Structures are given as C-alpha cells and as structure tokens.
C-alpha cells in the first residue's frame, strides 16, 4: 500500500512529543502518526511506501520519527524534497529516502522498486520512473545504515570516492 502525504509533514506529526517517550523501536512504531492519521499504525504493512510532497520530516530533529517509520517496515519514502536532518537520520538508519516527483500515485497502485537500476515501476499505471539516488544512500541502505558502515570501516568509509 502507498501512504500519500501532503507538503511539510513535520516530525511532531510522525512521533508527537507527548508519546515520544519510548526507547523501544517497536513501541515507537505504534505511535507513528497516532494523532494525524490514526489508521496508519494499525494498517501499515511491511513493504509499504510513503509518498509525500515537499519538505518531508521538517521541524524537530527527533530521530524517533525515522526509527518509528523504519520499525513500521516502510520500504522507502519518496518525497519531492526532504528536510536535511530527517534525511541524514534516514541515512544513519538505512531507511530509503528518495527525492522524486512521482506524479499521481494511487493508494493501491502496485509499485516495484528496482534499486540496482534506480527505476520505480508503477505496474497499475504502467509507468516507469527513473530515479536519482545518491550512492551514499544506497550504500547506507545495503549496510543497514551508515552507523553500521562506520562501525565496520571507520570514518573514512563515508568520505567521497572511498570504496567499501
């Protein structure tokens, strides 16, 4: 399923301050969008996509927003643009955040993400969208997050040009 969001979805909407007092990702998964879109945490399934407008993840730096969505097993977030801190948090946790304008996508459209060729197929609408994904994001995703990459290869691993 695809979860469609408007512009400027802030991290207070993803993990609201009053509920954001958990240090267990599974519990955080349950509070995702709990006030803004209560059906989200009940219906979200592994492999679902989030498709959003501009400036997704703006506002507070709280990493729980990313940890919560990752724990919901969201496959990738597509947004017209991301807030900088949110994007870095996604990199560190290996949650795919892909800047793209996908045009009209239905809630139930069948999407297939081909990371190797950086293409998104919309099987329902018979559309093929070429994606631009920075190498660091793909590297981070494959490692399960930049933190794990750093742990294994040290800080040099993320410097440009360094192959790991």
């Amino acid at each position, binding site marked *: 399923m695809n979860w469609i969001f408007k512009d*400027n979805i*802030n991290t*207070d*909407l993803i993990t*609201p*301050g*009053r509920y*954001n*007092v*958990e*240090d267990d990702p599974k519990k955080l998964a349950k509070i995702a969008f709990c*006030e*803004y879109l209560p059906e989200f945490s009940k219906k979200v399934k592994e492999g679902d996509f989030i498709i959003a407008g*501009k*400036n997704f993840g*703006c*506002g*507070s*730096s*709280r*990493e*729980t927003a*990313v*940890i919560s969505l990752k724990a919901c097993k969201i496959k990738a977030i597509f947004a017209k*643009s991301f*807030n*900088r*801190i*949110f994007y*870095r*948090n996604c990199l*560190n*946790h290996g949650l795919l955040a892909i800047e793209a304008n996908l045009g009209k996508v239905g809630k139930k459209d069948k999407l297939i993400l081909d990371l190797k060729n950086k293409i998104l197929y919309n099987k329902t609408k018979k559309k093929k969208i070429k994606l631009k994904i920075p190498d660091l994001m793909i590297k981070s995703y494959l490692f399960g*997050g930049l*933190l*794990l990459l*750093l*742990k294994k290869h040290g*800080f040099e691993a*993320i*410097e*440009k040009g360094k192959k790991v």
Partner: protein
Amino acid sequence: MVGQTIAEKIFSLHSNKKVFAGDFVVSNLDLVFSHDTTTIWTLSPFYSLKKKVFDTSKVIIFFDHAFPAPNIQIANFHKKIQKFAKDQKIKILKEGICHQVLVEKFVKPGQLIVGGDSHTPSCGCLGALAIGLGSSDIAIAMAFGKQYFFVPETIKIEVKGKFKKGVFSKDLALSVAKILGPEGANYKVLEWTGETISKLKISERMTLTNMSAEMGAKSAICPPDEMTEKFLKENRRFFKFEKMRSDKNANFSSILKIDASKISPLISRPPEIDKVFEVKKIEKEKIKVDQVFIGSCTNGRIDDLEIAFKILKRAKKIKTRLIIIPASKKVLLEALKRKYIEFFVKIGAVVLNPGCGPCLGRHQGVLGDGEVCVSTSNRNFMGRMGSPKALIFLASPATAAASAVKGFISDPRNFL
C-alpha cells in the same frame, strides 16, 4: 579569485582546505552537544562506535526539554543519561535551555558546532556556525570529533531601517518566514546582515538565528562585531576573535533585502510558520486566548521579559493563563533582581524553572482541546503543545503580553 561566505570560511578553517558551497568535507568540531530528549537515542549508536568521547571538554549534555522529569519514563531516561555522562566524565548542565546557556557560556565566534536539536543554529548569533543533527549523527560526532557535510550555500538577508514602535526582532523573523516559507532555506545558511542587524543586541539576534531553523536553514549566522565583543565582555568572557565577514565577491545563492521600518507587529497562524499576518488584522477577529506563553529559546531572555513587564505593568491585570519561563538561570536571577518575577507572580502569572517549558507539549502548560495559545516560541504545528485540536499563534513577547491583558489576540501598540 572568487571570495568566500562566512560559512565557507568557517568550513575551510575546520577542514584544512579552502572549500566552497557544494564541496564534500569532513570537518573537525569545536563543540558537540545534546539534551535530555535526543541523548537517549545517542547512547547505543555511540557505544557501537567507541568506548570514550573524543574530548570530554568538548561534549556537553543539557537537561532542559523536560526537567525535572514530569513522568517515570522521562525520569528513567534522565537516569540512563546521567550514567552515560558519569562514565564518560562529561558535564550535564541543568540551568536552562541548551542554546541559551551555550551562548552565555561556551560559544565563540568562528566555531563549528553540532547539536542534537533542530534549533542549534541559534548559536550563530555570536558568529559561530552551528548545525542541528539527529541523535545518531551526534553519536558519530561524540565518537570521532568530526562529521561529514556538504558545504552549504548562503542566503544573505540584508536588513536596513529602524523598527517602528511595537516591532521587535521576532516580527522581523516572521516577516522573513513569510517570504521563505518552511523550506526556503533548506540545506542553506541564512546570513543576517545590514545596518539594522549591526544595531541589534545578541539576544535579539538570537531570535533571528533561532527562527532560521523554521525556514529549514542548516545554519544561521550574524557576522561577529562590536556588539558581539560587548556581549562576551558582559558575560565575563575575555578572548580575542576575528571579526569575520563574507568577502565582497562571495557567491550567495540569493540576497533578500528587507526594510525593517516597513514591518508591523506580526503573528503566525497555525499550523505552519509562514501563515503570517499583521496582528492589527487578526485583532479584529477577537480570537479568545486561553494561554499565553512567554519563554523558549526564541524569546525567553531578559529583554523579552522586560518588554512583557512594561506592557503588563501598564495594565496590571491579566485575562488568560500566563506562563513565563526565563530561558536560563542567569536570566531568572536577573529578572529576580529587577523585581520582574515578583510582579509577574503578583498579577497571577505562573513562573516556572528555566527550560523549554510547554513549547514541545511535554509538561508545564499542555493545551486542551480547542484551546488557543499565543506563544513566543517557534513552532505552531498541530499537536505541538498538547491537544491536536489546540491552536498555537506565534508572536513577539510584546504581542503575547498584550494578548494576556486583553484576553484576545491584541496589538502591542495598544500598550506602548
């Protein structure tokens, strides 16, 4: 040869090479900080990387977002963080909002700072480059003393002209937010310059660098000058620093020219920062106010309390719940000395301990369904201060105080 912006100069100094916007750098950090909310998610990533922080004198933790603990969960978070700080031999400061205490005691012009809080750019009021990061990025910074960045482009905001009566730096910040919107400065630095800025006190500049985060800015900076020098001396901090400027031939991504004399008292309507209107216009709607909050890293300083005091003194009575929170212990002590606190308490305000207070809806003034709050803080998102059905209007301390007196959103010029 192309010149550099201040941001490019600071990145160059910390990356051991001359760099420009768009360059990828690994930079050495002068200061790394986090607070009671974000540190909890720093602990496990930190220990996955290193056993000890890179330099115990350059890492600071603040308890400000919910201190003293309002519930058991947060009390247990505090315990975990205290153990971490003890094991690492690093300081935990519990004397006010991180950004405020940093500016009073630690920040130096030209520094590169990272903080586990989105309002980290606040420290730019002293001419440092301070960048907000998430908890795991702070773990990396604490472990290695460096971080990776793309050197950001800079938007120059040139401000001239004098503020009219009833207009403050918060109104200037809101007028720029209206132009840039919540994403207008994403990945960029906002450089606040011009004759108006050079006359603003550090506390007023801090409102601008703080609010820059609401436009998505990676950082914000006011060029360090005589006013910076004066502030540091007043805070008993004596050292020499370079009065760094952007070169005349530096590349800016854009230049925004603002005439401060044309700004009126402004207010941001929920739920987004750029829904900015003149207070005079909103006043006509007679919006009943339940709570007024004067405080936060945006507007919780002594100058802010002074404005509130002047307005409240004239009226002597309030018609709303009024919560006043000095941003730091230093501000609280000064407000006590000036007898502001005594007066606030006498007229029925609730004065609370230095910290973030109700800004993030955790404690100390959570809003109920349908309640209206006029707040001097920086975010009016749905549910930010409590019920998702509450409405948060953002304004200057003057507008907030005027609204507390009238009981509805009110123009401060009625009292000045």
